[in-house]
C-alpha cells in the first residue's frame, strides 16, 4: 500500500464495477511467457523509519567537504548557497510540477525561467539563453551541434584547456553524428593562438571551443581567438565552468563569442557528487532558433495581462521530431531555479564581491603555496581566477593521501585526468575558505613535502 490511497476494498469494488474479478485480469494482454518471466527481486519494502536509518547509514559512510578543508574544484565548485534557496525549492508547487506545458497554471516556473534566461544573458553578454540543458559537458556538445548547423561544416576544434570530461563528452556526441574533432594545444597554460589559427585556416572548422577560465585556471584571451575564428567564418564557443568568474571577467559576449555554453552549478547548487547540475547555453541573436531545449518568452493573455509561455517550440522534438535541433526534453529546471534565486540574492554588487573574494583568496593561496621551496607554479604569469596548478616534487596522489589524514583535501589530482600531469595538483580556493585554512594548507603541504 505504499503511497497508494486505494484500499483493497476500493480496488475490488473498482474491478467489479468494470466487470473484472481480479487485478491479473487487467494484464491478460501481456503474453503469458512474458508475464511468467517477470519475476524480480529488489528486496522487501521498508517502513519510513527503517528506510531513514538505512539511508542515513549510507550517507554517513561518506566524508563530506564540511568534514575537511577542501580545495577541490575542477568543474564542481563549492560556493556559498543562501539557506533560503533550499527552503524555497521545497515549495511543492515548484518541485512537483512538470515542464510548464500549461502556461496558465505554470506562471511560477515560467517567470522564473524567464528571469533565469535574463540572468544568463547578463552574465554571458549574449542575446538569448535557453532554459538549461543537462550540464556543462552536454551544453558544450549541444553548442558544437549548433555550430555545425550554422556553418554547415562538421569539424569541431576544441582547446586542450577544455575540461577533460567535457572534451570526452563532446567526442562521444561528435562520434555518433560523424563529426570530426580536433584538439588545439596549450602554450603556457592557454590555447595556442598559432595552432588555432593554423587549424582554422583550413576553413573546414565549424567552431573553436575554448574554456574561460580554462580547466587549468588560466584566463584565455578570448578576444584574440575570436578574431581568428571570425576571420574564417567559424563560430567561437566559450565554455564557462565557473560562472562566478564572470562577476569580474569580461563577458564572453563582449569578447566576441558566438555561443556561450557552461555549467551554472556554482550558483545555488551543491556539488552533490557531480549532479544534478545545470548546463547553460546562450547565443547571439543569429543562433536563437538553433538553441536546443525549452525557451520561455513573454506575451499577453486575452485580457492583455503579461504572461510567459514556452516559445519557439518549432525547434523542439515534440514538434519537429527527427528534425529537431536536439532531442532534449526534460532539462534541469529546478537547478536553474536554484541558480536564479542565488544570482538574485547575490545581485549586482554581491556577485562582484563574491568574485573578488574568490580572486583574492585564490591569489593569496597561490602566493603562499608557491613560496614553498618545493612547490612550483606550473603556469607562472598567467592570469587566473580561483584555480591554479602547482607541481610537487612527488606524485600528487601521495600528497593528497597524506594531507587527507590531516583533514585537508589539497586539490584535484591532475594525473587522474591527464596522465602526464602526475605531480600536479589543481587547487581551487573559493570564498568559503578562510585565511587560516589556506595558511594551514600551506603549512601542512610544506610539512609533507
Amino acid at each position, binding site marked *: 500500500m505504499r503511497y497508494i490511497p486505494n484500499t483493497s476494498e476500493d480496488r475490488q469494488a473498482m474491478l467489479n464495477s468494470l466487470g473484472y474479478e481480479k487485478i491479473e485480469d487487467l494484464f491478460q494482454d501481456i503474453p503469458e511467457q512474458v508475464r511468467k518471466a517477470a519475476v524480480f527481486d529488489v528486496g*522487501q519494502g521498508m517502513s519510513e523509519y527503517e528506510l531513514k536509518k538505512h539511508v542515513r547509514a549510507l550517507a554517513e559512510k561518506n566524508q563530506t567537504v564540511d568534514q575537511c578543508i577542501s580545495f577541490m574544484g575542477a568543474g564542481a565548485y563549492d560556493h556559498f548557497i543562501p539557506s533560503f534557496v533550499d527552503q524555497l525549492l521545497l515549495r511543492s508547487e515548484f518541485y512537483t510540477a512538470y515542464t510548464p506545458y500549461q502556461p496558465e497554471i505554470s506562471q511560477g516556473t515560467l517567470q522564473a525561467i524567464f528571469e533565469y534566461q535574463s540572468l544568463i544573458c547578463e552574465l554571458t553578454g549574449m542575446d538569448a539563453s535557453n532554459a538549461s540543458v543537462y550540464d556543462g559537458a552536454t551544453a558544450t556538445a549541444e553548442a558544437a551541434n549548433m555550430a555545425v548547423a550554422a556553418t554547415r561544416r562538421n569539424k569541431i576544434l576544441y582547446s586542450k584547456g577544455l575540461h577533460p570530461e567535457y572534451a570526452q563528452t563532446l567526442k562521444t556526441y561528435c*562520434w555518433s553524428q560523424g563529426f570530426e574533432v580536433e584538439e588545439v594545444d596549450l602554450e603556457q597554460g592557454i590555447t595556442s593562438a598559432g595552432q588555432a589559427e593554423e587549424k582554422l585556416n583550413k576553413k573546414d572548422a565549424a567552431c573553436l571551443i575554448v574554456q574561460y577560465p580554462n580547466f587549468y585556471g588560466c584566463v584565455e584571451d578570448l578576444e584574440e581567438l575570436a578574431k581568428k575564428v571570425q576571420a574564417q567564418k567559424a563560430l567561437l564557443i566559450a565554455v564557462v565552468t565557473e560562472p562566478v568568474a564572470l562577476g569580474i571577467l569580461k563577458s564572453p559576449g563582449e569578447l566576441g563569442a558566438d555561443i556561450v555554453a557552461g555549467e551554472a552549478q556554482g550558483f545555488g547548487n551543491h556539488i552533490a557528487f557531480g549532479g544534478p547540475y545545470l548546463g547553460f547555453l546562450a547565443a547571439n541573436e543569429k543562433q536563437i532558433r538553433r538553441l536546443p531545449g525549452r525557451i520561455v518568452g513573454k506575451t499577453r493573455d486575452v485580457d492583455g495581462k503579461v504572461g510567459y509561455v514556452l516559445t519557439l517550440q518549432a525547434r523542439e522534438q515534440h514538434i519537429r521530431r527527427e528534425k529537431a535541433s536536439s532531442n532534449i526534453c526534460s532539462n534541469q529546471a529546478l537547478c536553474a531555479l536554484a541558480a536564479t534565486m542565488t544570482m538574485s540574492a547575490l545581485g549586482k554588487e554581491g556577485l562582484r564581491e563574491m568574485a573578488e573574494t574568490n580572486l583574492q583568496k585564490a591569489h593569496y593561496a597561490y602566493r603562499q603555496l608557491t613560496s614553498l621551496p618545493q612547490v612550483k607554479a606550473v603556469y607562472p604569469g598567467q592570469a587566473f581566477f580561483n584555480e591554479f596548478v602547482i607541481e610537487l616534487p612527488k606524485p600528487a596522489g601521495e600528497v593528497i593521501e597524506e594531507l587527507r589524514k590531516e583533514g585537508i583535501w589539497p586539490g584535484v589530482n591532475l594525473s587522474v585526468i591527464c596522465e602526464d600531469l602526475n605531480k600536479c595538483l589543481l587547487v581551487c580556493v573559493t570564498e568559503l575558505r578562510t585565511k587560516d585554512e589556506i595558511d594551514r594548507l600551506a603549512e601542512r603541504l610544506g610539512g609533507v613535502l
Partner: protein
Amino acid sequence: MREPLIFEISKKGRKGCYLPPCDVPTQKVGEMIPEKYLRDKKAELPEVSEIDVVRHFTKLSTYNHGVDTGFYPLGSCTMKYNPKINEELSRLTGFARLHPYQPEETAQGALELMYTLQKDLCQVAGMDKVSLQPAAGAHGELAGIMVIKAYHEKRGDLKRNKVIVPDSAHGTNPATANMAGFKTIEIASNARGEVDLEALARALDDTTAALMLTNPNTLGLFESQILEIAEMVHKAGGLLYYDGANINAVMGYARPGDMGFDVVHFNLHKTMGTPHGGGGPGSGPIGVKKRLAEFLPVPTVEKADDGSFYLNYDMPDSIGKVKAFYGNFLVMVKAYCYIKALGTDGLKEASEVAVLNANYLMENLKKTYHLPYDRICKHEFVINSKNLKPYGVHTLDIAKRLLDFGYHPPTVYFPLIVEEALMIEPTETESRETLDDFIAIMEKIHQEAIDNKELVVNAPYNTVVRRLDEVSAARNPIIRWKKDE
C-alpha cells in the same frame, strides 16, 4: 497584482545574502588580472534584499500547479506523488556535500547506493547491466542508441544507418535517432494501435540498426505481438530499444529484457517517484543485455573483491562519456529510497493500481468521450474530443476548461496518430474519489461544450492569467529582460 520581474524590484545597493568576508591580505585586482580581461560594467543582476527574494519566489510558487496542489493526469509523464522522505534523505549532507573527485574511499556510501541501484534496475527491467549516467529520458535514449551504434560498428556492420520508430512514438525517439546520426524510418500503427507487423517487415533490412519502442506504447496499449516483433528485428540483425517512460505500467508483469529488448532507459522521475522539478532534473539510466555491456558509457560502479566500491573507467569499447561526472546523483538517491521503501511487492502493486486506476477512468470516460482504441489499457489511455467537433469545441478547450476546476489537464494532441487526443494517466497514487470527481467534471465540461460553447472555448477564467498569445510570443520573441526596456 501580479508579481513583477525580480529585475523590476531592484533597488541600487540592496543585497540578498551575506557572504563570507575576505580575510586574506589583498592585492589590487589589476595586479592579478590584466585590465583587458576585466569587466568595466557589472552584470545587471537585480539588487534586492533577502526578504524580497523570499517573497518573490514564494509568490511565484503560488502561480504553479504541482502534484501536491491536485490531480495531474498528464499522460506519459507519470505524475505520481513524490514522497517527502526522499526529499529529506537526498538532502543529507552525506550526499549533497560530496565532491565528485574526492577519493573513492571517502565516498563508499554513495558508490554503494549507486551500485545497488544499478542492480535493482537490472532486476526491474530484466537487463544485465545498468549505467546511471544519463540525466533524463531523452539523454538515456541517446546514450542507448549510441550503444547500439557502437555495437554494430564493433562488429563491422557499418551499413546499419536506420532506426525504425512507430508513428505513435514520442518525439524524443526520432529526434534521438537523428542526433545519433541515424536516419529515422517511421512505420504506421495498425488498427489495434500496435506496431503493424507487415509495415515492420517492409521496413526491416540489413540497414536497420534498431527499432525503438515503448511498451505499453503511447496509446497505453500493450504491444501484444512484442515477441514476434523482437524476433523479426533480431532476425534482421537489428536491436531493440525500449523507451522506458511507461514502465510504471508493467512492473512485475513484463520486463523489457524478457520481451526481447536489448537496451532500455528508465525515467526515474516517472517510474521511481522522483519529482519532475518543473522540468527536471530527472535521471535516465540505461540498462543493456550482456553483449552490449562493454559499450556502456563510463564510468560504471563496480564492487571489488574486498567489498569496496569503485568507479570503473576501464572499458575500452565504451562509447565514452555522455556527461561530466556520474549522472544526476541526488535524483538517484531519491529513486533508491523509493525502491527500498516499496520493495518488490510494492513496485508490482504500484503498477497494478496504476493500471486499475487507468482502466477505471477509461471505462467511465468512454461513456461521454470517444475512445478510439477500446480495449484494456495499461497505465494510461487516449480519448479524443471528436464528438464535440460539431459544437466547435476542441481538445485544447477542454484542457483549458479543466484548469477552472483545479485540475492539471491531460497531455493533449499526443500521440499524433489520434486526432484531438487527450492522453490520460492517473497513476496509482490517486484515490477512487479523485478519479470520480474528475470523471464528473469531464462529463460536466462535455455537457457545457454542447450547451454553452462560449463558456468552454474562452476558458480558463480562474487562473492567474488566461489564454496566452503564443503566436506573437513566437513571432516576436521577447526572451529576456533588458535594462532599458
